[in-house]
């Protein structure tokens, strides 16, 4: 039988949870979330600056590179609260790029870039391709060596926050092997990025054309660690996205309850009808399970075996909880739920987008079956 991990909660997690809870609530009321939908950048640079100043970007970066030297576990409460308030920033993208450099970068790359990320610069990953496969080693884009230069070709999709990123870490085949290479903003031809139309209008992602991009060979991350880095990135991404979805699940349930406590039909508040009340309870139970899995995964993230299991379970339960809670929220809001003005759709769209990035419930469960059985 496979050992499963437990749950713990560090003091640092507690402190960050408290701060993030207040900050995200204050900075990201729903009217602001909706206002940013129409904004091309999609987030408020002032808030992004604040986040940098608070040192949240430095949390999991080693002290040697100007970071705080804590772990992914301490990032989880921050992202959970961002998800709860739908606070849009390149925080997850930048954190993932930092992890790529920490695990897979050369000392020179880490030393050059990580301090800037601590200071508030944005970065992102470009791993997804047209086939839409979540297996990150299925790479078709490539980089051809030309002396000391790498000439990239192919396309990447769902490159989150690319327009705000100073660095994009791209997966390409070099000499037939999956590799990671750093592309700087300055390397991008004018039309290299195309903003994508995605189901979650609060998110920004871009298609990236690699043709006509050339970078020096020293932009390659350590080839020996590519596979390990990609595996690590998939787990970190799934954990942080699970955190974001779990926070969103809490909000959409609260949002639904507010309506059930104000809307009357047949002379009763509709929350009094068991046909509405009991599924709402089911949604709430699903959310609490998701939160337990989330902090369990955060706690044992670095453990061999149980860390991956816990992370994938957290991703499965977070998606289930948010998708179900938001789906029922649309339904229980009745006619209003069918309108664009009802926030329920924002959460339902969030669930679809989040599940699409690094593996949905079905994908995670297949991985879990092989890990557990």
């Amino acid at each position, binding site marked *: 039988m496979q050992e499963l991990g437990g749950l713990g909660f560090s003091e640092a997690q507690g402190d960050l949870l408290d701060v993030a809870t207040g900050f995200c609530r204050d900075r990201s009321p729903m009217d602001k979330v909706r206002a940013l939908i129409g904004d091309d950048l999609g987030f408020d640079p002032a808030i992004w600056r604040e986040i940098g100043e608070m040192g949240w970007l430095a949390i999991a970066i080693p002290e040697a590179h100007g970071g705080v030297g804590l772990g992914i576990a301490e990032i989880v409460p921050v992202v959970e609260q961002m998800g709860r308030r739908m606070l849009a920033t390149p925080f997850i993208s930048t954190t993932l790029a930092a992890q790529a450099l920490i695990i897979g970068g050369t000392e020179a790359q880490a030393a050059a870039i990580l301090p800037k990320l601590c200071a508030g610069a944005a970065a992102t990953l470009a791993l*997804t391709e047209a086939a*839409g496969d979540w297996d990150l080693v299925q790479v078709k884009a490539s980089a051809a060596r030309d002396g000391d230069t790498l000439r990239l070709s192919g396309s990447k999709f769902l490159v989150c926050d690319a327009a705000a990123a100073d660095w994009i870490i791209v997966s390409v085949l070099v000499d037939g092997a999956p590799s990671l290479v750093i592309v700087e903003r300055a390397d991008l031809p004018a039309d290299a990025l195309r903003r994508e139309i995605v*189901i979650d209008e609060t998110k920004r992602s871009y298609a990236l054309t690699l043709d006509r991009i050339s970078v020096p060979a020293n932009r390659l991350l350590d080839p020996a660690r590519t596979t390990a880095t990609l595996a690590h990135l998939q787990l970190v991404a799934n954990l942080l996205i699970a955190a974001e979805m779990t926070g969103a699940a809490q909000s959409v349930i609260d949002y639904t309850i507010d309506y059930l406590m104000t809307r009357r039909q*047949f002379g009763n508040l509709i929350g009094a009808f068991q046909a509405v009340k009991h599924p709402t309870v089911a949604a709430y139970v699903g959310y609490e399970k998701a939160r337990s899995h989330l902090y369990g995964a955060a706690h044992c993230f670095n453990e061999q075996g149980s860390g991956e299991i816990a992370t994938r379970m957290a991703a499965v339960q977070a998606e289930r909880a948010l998708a179900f809670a938001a789906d029922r929220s649309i*339904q229980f809001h009745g006619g209003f739920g*069918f*309108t664009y003005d009802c926030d*329920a759709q924002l959460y*339902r769209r969030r669930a679809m987008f989040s599940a699409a990035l690094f593996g949905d419930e079905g994908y995670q469960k297949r991985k879990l079956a092989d890990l557990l059985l």
Partner: protein
Amino acid sequence: MTEYSKAELDEFAAGADAWFRENTPADPGFMLPLTFMEVGTDQQFDFLRNWQRKVYEAGYLGAAWPSEYGGGGLHDMFQRVATSAMRRYKGPILPNAIGLNWTGPLLLDIGSEAHKHKYIKGILNAEDIWCQGFSEPENGSDLGNAQLKAVRDGDDYVLNGSKIWTTLGNYAKYMILLARTDPNAPNKYAGLSFILTPMTVPGVETRKIRKLTGEYGFTQTFFTDARAPADGLMGAEGQGWKVAMQTLEYERGARKGQAGGYISKEVDPFAVLKLAAEARRDGKPVLEDAVVRDQLVDYIMEAQSLALNGQRSRIPGLNQDRPMGLALMNKLVFTEFAREVNQFAVAMQGSKSAYYVGDPSATDDGFWTRSYLNAFSATIGGGTTQIQHNIIGEHVLGLPKTR
């Protein structure tokens, strides 16, 4: 109904088959609505209105409605084979849903001669689009509590108030309106009247409502001292609830008499197969995944359940214990199935499920995601899924009313 010979029917069926084979339009190059509730653009509306007129003029719509009012005057079987042919060639939906499926049958059953002569033909040829004015902002599921005021003044009713979720409200020429004519009635139901109301008179304004899909669909309709002729009254004053309930029975298929054709496409789970075959996980087609296959079997079975329920509902010998059961559960089963299968189809797309309508990378231009979101119009409208459970529990199983 008139008598007919098998030969006549066969000949008619052959004609219908040939006609739909030739005349069913090809893909117009823009997305066509799956249901009448999804008509969002003038382009879509004009296309569908022309299609309905064409079907009617060919004699394959309202074939069983009385000829003196514009129908075909044939036995119901004729319309049924025509509808089957329409389905066989996957023709577009007919847009004048509320006219064809509930206003028309209602008028033919309890309307006056004048009503029938005035309205039936326009319903069939889509000249006169109809909408329904039951729900109000404060009263969605609780129709009996409708508050829109109708005050008799000479030969008119003067209308003040607002109706919401009006499908096709911005195209409709008439509305079937549930209004309160007596605020002091002994109970909320007794104060209601049912009025055929023109939408093109002064004091009637419609405002489009933006749907969760981001598109514009149905409307809210505002009445400000708008005048509706009193001869539009259906049933007597104060009988509006009874007439409205009868109307809902047509809507739910619990009463027959619809003009024929269809107003929403059947969900085809086999179309999801295509997605599953295209999407890849770990380099393999998702369709090879036993779990996905297992779920596809469920959806194919559910589609077959709907088809078989429909066929069985026409066999009295197999509906003896609870005769209304199959008819009353159809809306519930069909609408929830549509929501679920479209949701599943979204999940089949792997990372491409991140895209939406308009992105070049989107699968089928976001058709499935939009269909999933649109599916709520049917699980909410026309009596929510929760209300449908009450209806079946109370009217079919005889369980006590939920207070």
